[in-house]
């Protein structure tokens, strides 16, 4: 047992309103520099949809993440082996190009002031931020497919729908064209990161104490394998400095006790952050589990912070009590492990992502008949119409399973039973149009107790700032003491920090 701590995250998708406030917060702080215009360390996608970069989930094209080699029983990067990396280093055949994102542009605003007098309004033409040339047609932008951009094309090309039936596809597009939900994405700070493994220079690393994955800008040599290695396409290549960059989980904010910017600014309050304790000895096993057991294997690696054995092992590994306490208060632990409500995005990529999602409840199957909106089971009695939301959801369970459980529909169904049971329980309490027998039936189906349902409701709907963001103490002072035992930590005060001592510019 090798217990370590990890700053981990939950996004509650039922609460996401798709407003992109998180994106703007991140962009303004971290990626408003030349070369990073196209980077969205945080982005919000419309699902079903193609995402950013276009069809990032299609690993036939991008070759991200790991695959299990059935013969050898080994885990391999889907991209290539180590020799393959060195052989392909002069040209990475699977690298996305800027066109898979978009060519960043600004506008020639000056023209509005300087245009000669004429019969027409002057316009501000688009100018490429890369080449400085005029761009006549803009074909893609940062959230070009937002709310599906008024087109069926985006939903149709979602890689998760590759196996969908005609009926499933038809249901998605039934009422007023289509149904969708939002999927905000940041770096998952994976336990078995593909980006780290793919970097031949060893420039990407995971911080042992909190699990944050960072790219050393001084060690990055522009071999650009991480961009392919990450199946979530969350490392980006800065075309102006020739270095890869990615979400840093706002570690400078975490180190000063604040939640990351995108968490802090989230309007829907969908984001939770907290510490989890995990067993590093189980990483390999969890990453190599059969597809349908991936979620359970990852859950198993996350340990109970109240278990005396776990606490003892954590102490042995030098995890301070303040962190163990933070792990006990962690909302992430509750959502992921205690209640089993939050699932990893695409566990099938086998990177063990440490950002978990509570899947959204979709609208139920319905029809437009004679110009009227009809849910399928409208007339049925008891729990039936509510539970119909599961198997009759217009976004099928199969689709959700493709996103959140490597295709295992049972896991997604269990989560939905719980989400529904909480609703029915609260409806019984507040609206009181559900009988106690029905409430009990729903709770039994979900395997929840009334008090658990209550707790889930509270942490979902009424959490305070302190309940959503349990930012663990980073204990930098103990770290400094361990590195420099002879030095009084106070003498280091104000001498470490973040940022470049020099501009991140190429001077040679």
């Amino acid at each position, binding site marked *: 047992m090798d217990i370590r701590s990890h700053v981990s995250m939950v996004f509650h998708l039922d609460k996401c309103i798709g407003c992109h406030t998180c994106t703007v917060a991140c962009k303004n702080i971290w990626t408003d520099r030349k070369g990073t215009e196209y980077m969205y360390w945080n982005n919000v996608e419309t699902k079903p949809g193609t995402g950013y970069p276009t069809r990032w989930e299609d690993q036939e094209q991008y070759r991200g993440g790991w695959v299990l080699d059935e013969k050898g029983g080994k885990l391999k*990067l889907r991209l290539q082996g*180590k020799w393959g*990396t*060195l052989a392909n*280093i*002069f*040209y*990475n*055949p699977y*690298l*996305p*190009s*800027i066109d898979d994102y978009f060519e960043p542009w600004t506008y020639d605003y000056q023209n509005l002031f300087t245009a000669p007098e004429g019969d027409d309004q002057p316009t501000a033409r688009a100018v490429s931020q*890369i*080449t*400085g*040339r005029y761009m006549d047609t803009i074909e893609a932008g940062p959230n070009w497919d937002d709310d599906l951009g008024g087109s069926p094309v985006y939903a149709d090309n979602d890689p998760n729908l590759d196996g969908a039936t005609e009926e499933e596809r038809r249901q998605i597009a039934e009422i007023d064209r289509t149904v969708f939900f939002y999927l905000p994405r940041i770096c998952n700070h994976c336990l*078995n*990161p593909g980006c*780290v*493994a793919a*970097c*031949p*220079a*060893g420039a*990407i*690393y*995971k*911080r*042992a*104490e909190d699990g944050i994955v960072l790219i050393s*800008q*001084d*060690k*990055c*040599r*522009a*071999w*650009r394998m991480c*961009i392919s290695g990450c199946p979530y396409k969350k490392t980006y*290549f800065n*075309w*102006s*400095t*020739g*270095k890869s960059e990615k979400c840093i989980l706002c570690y400078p904010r975490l180190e000063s006790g604040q939640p990351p910017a995108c968490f802090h600014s989230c309007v829907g309050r969908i984001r939770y952050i907290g510490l989890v304790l995990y067993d*590093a000895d189980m990483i390999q096993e969890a990453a190599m589990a059969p597809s349908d057991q991936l979620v359970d294997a990852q859950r198993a690696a996350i340990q109970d912070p109240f278990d005396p054995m776990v606490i003892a092992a954590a102490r042995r590994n*030098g995890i301070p009590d303040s962190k163990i306490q933070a792990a006990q208060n962690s909302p992430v632990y509750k959502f992921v492990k205690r209640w089993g409500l939050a699932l990893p995005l695409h566990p099938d990529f086998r990177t063990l992502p440490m950002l978990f999602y509570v899947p959204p409840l979709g609208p139920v199957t319905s029809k437009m008949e004679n110009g009227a909106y009809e849910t399928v089971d409208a007339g049925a009695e008891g729990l039936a119409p509510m539970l119909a939301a599961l198997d009759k959801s217009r976004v099928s369970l199969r689709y959700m399973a493709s996103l959140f459980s490597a295709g295992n529909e049972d896991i997604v169904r269990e989560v939905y039973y719980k989400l529904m049971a909480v609703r029915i329980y609260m409806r019984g309490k507040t609206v009181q149009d559900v009988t106690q027998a029905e409430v009990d039936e729903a709770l039994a189906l979900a395997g929840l107790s009334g008090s658990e349902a209550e707790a889930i409701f509270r942490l979902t709907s009424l959490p305070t700032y302190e309940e959503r963001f349990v930012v663990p103490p980073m*204990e*930098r002072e*103990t*770290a400094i003491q*361990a*590195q420099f035992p002879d030095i009084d930590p106070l003498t280091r005060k104000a001498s470490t920090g973040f940022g470049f001592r*020099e501009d*991140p*510019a*190429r*001077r*040679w």
Partner: protein
Amino acid sequence: MIDTLAFVVFPYVAVALVLIVTPYRYFSDRFSYSSFSSELLQRKGLFWGSVAWHYGVILILLAHLAALLAPGAWAALISEPTRLYVLEVTGLALALATVAGMVVLIGRRLFLPRVASVTTRWDWVVLFVLLAQVALGFWVALFYRWGSDWYLHTAVPWIVSLATLNPQTQFVASLPILVQIHMLGGFVLLALFPFTRLVHMITFPVTYLWRPYQVVIWNRRRRVVP
């Protein structure tokens, strides 16, 4: 006089620059210590340019180096005509690949605006010196037969004399001018090496082969975990 300048002073200056500036840059500005990929901006042409160039030039450089370091074995290798022909034809083909690759690489930077926008003045210097050098090499190999043989009796003893601090210019002083330029071109590239993107050569990440996949850095204790 001019011989001494060109074949003694200049090579020593070039090597001195490499020895002093290369580590200086590494320790003072590691951020810049890499090539500068343009693949994200423009994949077009890069495969045919970059792959042909790199594989061609690496093999050719290795051959130059092998003959320099083990002249005896090299002489034995080419003592049999068939082997000499095979070697020379392979060399010519590789040289052609490097020339073609470099032309493609230069063409990208000339004609594709996205790549042009990330091209510096030093990049142009490096590209044209490299093109001149490989084109000259190809020319020399084609019209001054058999290079793999006379190299052993001209450039090799000259470089050995430089390396042993007993510089002798007579091995190269009377060679045709194109051959001389090709030889000096090597030292021009050495002189350019520490100042330009050429430094990426020594950052080639071989250590990846034995490094564990995952890199974990501890704050509280020093340990690397597989």
